[in-house]
């Protein structure tokens, strides 16, 4: 009897205590994750943390794992074919047979995903247009640059309008314009209801598009949440940058303001105030401005700085776990 998750549940990807071993190496250790329908889920972690292994379990390329995995309500790997009917996947190192042209590869993958020849023909035109690949439609894939081949890989994943898109390092090798284009494409897909699960080492891009982020370290999910949730959960507070037009030199007295964690002066006209994570930002900024004026300083600008995903990430996985 194959178990099926509640069809009313909005969770499209559910991993429950999933573990995977390669010999003596524990690649995944009781990973629990839920990804909601229509969500863009960013999956980050150091090299060898188990991101690709997780993705291969989700798409059914790895079947001998422990724990439970449900995709769209279907249990993996037992109901792999049902899942494959609604799946688009871009592997980390996308590869095609040498003799295939872009059009031929996409036609084959489109047909294998259930499109008729006419539907595939139409969708190939559309997808290549969106990804700016129309000019290379009849070229051999091996003759394309790495970035272009990566985009062909993305095209094959989008062709059949899948409900779930699993993308392993989709931004690797793309130039800034292509990265921007890619982010626009996946935001649009998510708006249309596609669930997107993607990993990337370019954390700023993950922060730009992901609605929620999962951090994996040494096979364990160490935290999952929105960027704000991750910041506050680990106590990564905000900072305030104050540019002074006149410094009275008495700014150390601002340390006594409630909610201020630390103060530093990186340059003669600049103050950096680190706030405690639970601090009320608006109140503290008011107090800082009042305090500085009372101390005889004059203010040119005040900017609130939130910690980047890079800083949050490094706090979670440590300096040794650079993405």
């Amino acid at each position, binding site marked *: 009897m194959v178990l099926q998750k509640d069809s009313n549940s909005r969770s499209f990807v559910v991993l429950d205590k999933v573990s995977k071993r390669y010999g003596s190496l524990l690649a995944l250790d009781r990973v629990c994750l839920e990804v909601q329908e229509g969500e863009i889920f960013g999956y980050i972690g150091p090299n060898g943390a188990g991101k690709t292994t997780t993705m*291969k379990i989700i*798409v*059914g*390329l*790895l*079947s*001998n794992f422990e724990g439970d995995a449900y995709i769209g309500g279907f249990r993996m790997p037992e109901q792999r*074919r*049902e899942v*494959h*009917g609604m*799946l688009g*996947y871009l*592997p980390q*190192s*996308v*590869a*095609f*047979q040498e*003799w*295939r042209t872009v059009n*031929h590869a996409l036609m*084959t*993958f489109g*047909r*294998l*995903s*259930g499109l008729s020849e006419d539907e595939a023909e139409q969708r190939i035109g559309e997808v290549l247009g969106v990804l700016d690949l129309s000019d290379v439609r009849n070229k051999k894939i091996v003759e394309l640059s790495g970035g272009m081949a990566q985009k062909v*890989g993305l095209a*094959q994943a989008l062709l059949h309008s899948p409900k779930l898109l699993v993308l392993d390092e989709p931004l690797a090798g793309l130039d800034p314009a292509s990265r921007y284009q890619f982010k626009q494409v996946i935001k649009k897909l998510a708006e249309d209801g596609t669930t997107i699960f993607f990993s990337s080492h370019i954390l700023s891009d993950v922060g730009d598009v992901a609605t929620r982020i999962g951090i994996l370290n040494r096979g364990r999910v160490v935290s999952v949440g929105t960027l704000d949730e991750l910041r506050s959960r680990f106590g990564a507070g905000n900072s305030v940058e104050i540019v002074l037009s006149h410094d009275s030199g008495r700014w150390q007295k601002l340390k006594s303001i409630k909610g201020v964690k630390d103060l530093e002066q990186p340059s003669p006209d600049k103050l950096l105030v680190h706030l405690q994570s639970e601090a009320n930002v608006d109140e503290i900024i008011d107090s800082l401005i009042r305090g500085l004026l009372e101390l005889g300083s004059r203010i040119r600008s005040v900017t609130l700085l939130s910690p980047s995903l890079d800083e949050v990430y490094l706090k979670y996985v440590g300096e040794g776990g650079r993405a």
Partner: protein
Amino acid sequence: MSLLLLLKDELRGFYRSKVMIFLWVGLPLMAVLFQFWSASTQQVFSFTLLSAVLVSSIGGTLASVMLAVSIINEKNRHVYELFLIRPEKRWNLIAAKFFAVYICIAVASFLAIAIGIGTDCLVRDGASGTVLKDTLQSVSVSMSMMAVSSAAGVLIGVASPSVLVGAILVIYGGNQISAIPMIPTILNIGNASLFTISSGILISTVLLILAALIFNKKQF
């Protein structure tokens, strides 16, 4: 449907490959050269049969090496991942590869054997009954040996971790197995063609089923 689609795909890839171009031209050429070489020697078997054995031995070895190397390469380059995440049966992929190479090699062999038949008709005083019998035997030996070679190539390709190991296994193992369908002909057993075809189909099927089982269980 997907088997047919994949077969057409693989045929498109194989028939223009450098190895296949060599076979399209090389096998018939070899048959012609063999006629000249063997014209001065005493004949036990007909030209047709000898051409078939020579051609199927060379063609079979090349087919099995080509299949094994191609599968190992594509496996190691992760080419199959994009196929395996489609709602299709996994074994279609290797079955399509087997049939594509087998069809290409079979056509090349038919050309070579046709040259042997032509020579036999000219040299053997038009003994049509003998030529026909030899032709049937030649074709059955050739097709059976190549089927077994190709199936062995698929199995070795699926199971072997590296191209080097695969090539060694094909040359030393695949070749020996592919000689089995020839035994009835060598021993001159009555109705040798039937034995040859049966053993060829049986061994190829077993090897392909084994390959499919391993491929289905494989973790990518």
